[in-house]
């Protein structure tokens, strides 16, 4: 019913033992540079380097990794099409005015803009997926505590984290049971079954959550989940690699400035 969570992969990836801060600075730095970049080269460079890292160093299966891009790329292609059609420009290749307030045109500028946004999305997505695949949430909780995220937020985050897995478990079981009994035959039945499913799972995981809190209260819970975190040491080679990667990307962002695929343009 659902895709495998990236979390499961992240727990066993090849870069699991690398310092969390280092992985985060590589990922977040890449996202930031993608956003700041005015040309398409830098995001593409970031995408290639990070994809290489994910495939070769983190040893993520290429098919799994590719599969993650299917959905965002579909969105990206469709949205870029909209940008290309509505953003306009001077050098017009094709245009159409179906309604007085709407004018669609393909221009040199809009193609440039569309390709640029497309590359930015690819770069940003690979950075995001890099963080998602190499850093399990449990490590992030440690970082969040060290960064003084308010305790309530952290508590709530862990509670939600836990309930997601509880809900998924029950959801899949009950859903299969319903499908076996032809619960999704017609539209009406689907709504009915889906609501029953949600209701039952909601109440079920809620009670499980209450049990958890009660069990923790009995063990002196004071509104603060204990997080077992070991910070892994920073090693010279990985730090240098990340610095080199971010430095090179920054160079591309500033040197290539507003290079465009079709030339000219603004």
């Amino acid at each position, binding site marked *: 019913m659902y895709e495998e969570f990236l979390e499961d992969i992240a727990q066993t990836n090849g870069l699991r033992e690398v310092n969390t801060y280092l992985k985060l600075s590589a990922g*977040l730095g890449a996202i930031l540079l993608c956003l700041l970049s005015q040309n398409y080269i830098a995001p593409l460079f970031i995408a290639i380097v990070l994809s290489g890292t994910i495939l070769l160093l983190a040893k993520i299966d290429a098919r799994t990794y590719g599969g993650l891009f299917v959905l965002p790329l579909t969105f990206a292609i*469709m949205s870029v099409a909209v940008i290309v059609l*509505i953003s306009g420009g001077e050098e017009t290749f094709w245009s159409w005015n179906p309604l007085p307030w709407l004018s669609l*045109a393909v221009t040199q500028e809009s193609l440039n803009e569309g390709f640029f946004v497309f590359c930015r999305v690819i770069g*940003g*997505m690979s950075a*995001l997926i890099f963080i998602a695949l190499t850093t399990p949430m449990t490590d992030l909780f440690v970082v969040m505590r060290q960064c003084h995220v308010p305790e309530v937020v952290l508590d709530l985050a862990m*509670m939600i984290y836990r309930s997601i897995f509880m809900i998924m478990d029950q959801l899949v079981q009950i859903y299969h049971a319903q499908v076996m009994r032809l619960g999704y035959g017609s539209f009406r039945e689907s709504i009915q079954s889906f609501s029953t499913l*949600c209701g039952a799972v909601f109440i079920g995981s809620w009670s499980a959550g209450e049990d958890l809190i009660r069990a923790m209260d009995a063990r002196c819970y004071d509104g603060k989940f204990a997080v077992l975190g070991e910070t892994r040491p920073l090693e010279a080679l990985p730090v240098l690699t990340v610095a080199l990667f971010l430095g090179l990307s920054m160079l591309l962002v500033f040197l290539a400035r507003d290079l465009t695929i079709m030339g000219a343009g603004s």
Partner: protein
Amino acid sequence: MEGYLPWQWCVVWWFIALPCLVFGIYRLKKVLEMDHEALPLLGVTGGFIFILSSLKLPSITGSCSHPTGTGLSAVCFGPWITSVVCAIVLLFQSLFLAHGGLSVLGANVVSMGIIGPIAGYIVYRALRDTRVNMYLTVFLACAIADLFTYITTSLELALATPAEVGGITSSFVLFMGIFAFTQVPLAIVEGIVLALVFKYIVQLKPDIILRLKVFPEEKIRAARGEA
């Protein structure tokens, strides 16, 4: 989606989202100090928002349609706490499923965590003490929360990519038109589903609904057939 919005807009939406989140955290502290047992309910609501909003349908606008599930939380805990829950859920979504993203998190929190729930909450407050059926109120609040989330998303997208002719208004109408195909039916279905979930809660575990004073006691008793 990561990298879709230009950085200027990312910053703007983060700036709008942050004060709301800070206020939400303050409210959250208050509620948890008062009622420790609200934490499991908040956790499950968050988990539900996560599951419901991962059911995605592609849409042509740099975003996609999905149920939001935020209405129920807005009704039970108010819009500010919902915004905190939503921010956490959206963070999980980008890291678990690679949906959404970190740079656009601010924009997503504004549409799904702030404007949507506020709209739903207004509807709920308006109808709460009237004679309107309790489940109908929940249905309307959830459906409206979902619809307003998408109106805000369209606005966010339109502001980032104004059309050449007609500017922001025309791209806003365009994005809204595209979303409307999937989102109006989805909002209705979501409203029905969440109203039914609410019915289960009222029938099986009404105590917390009573303690949070979500609906007047008589109404809940009447719905349980105890009156």
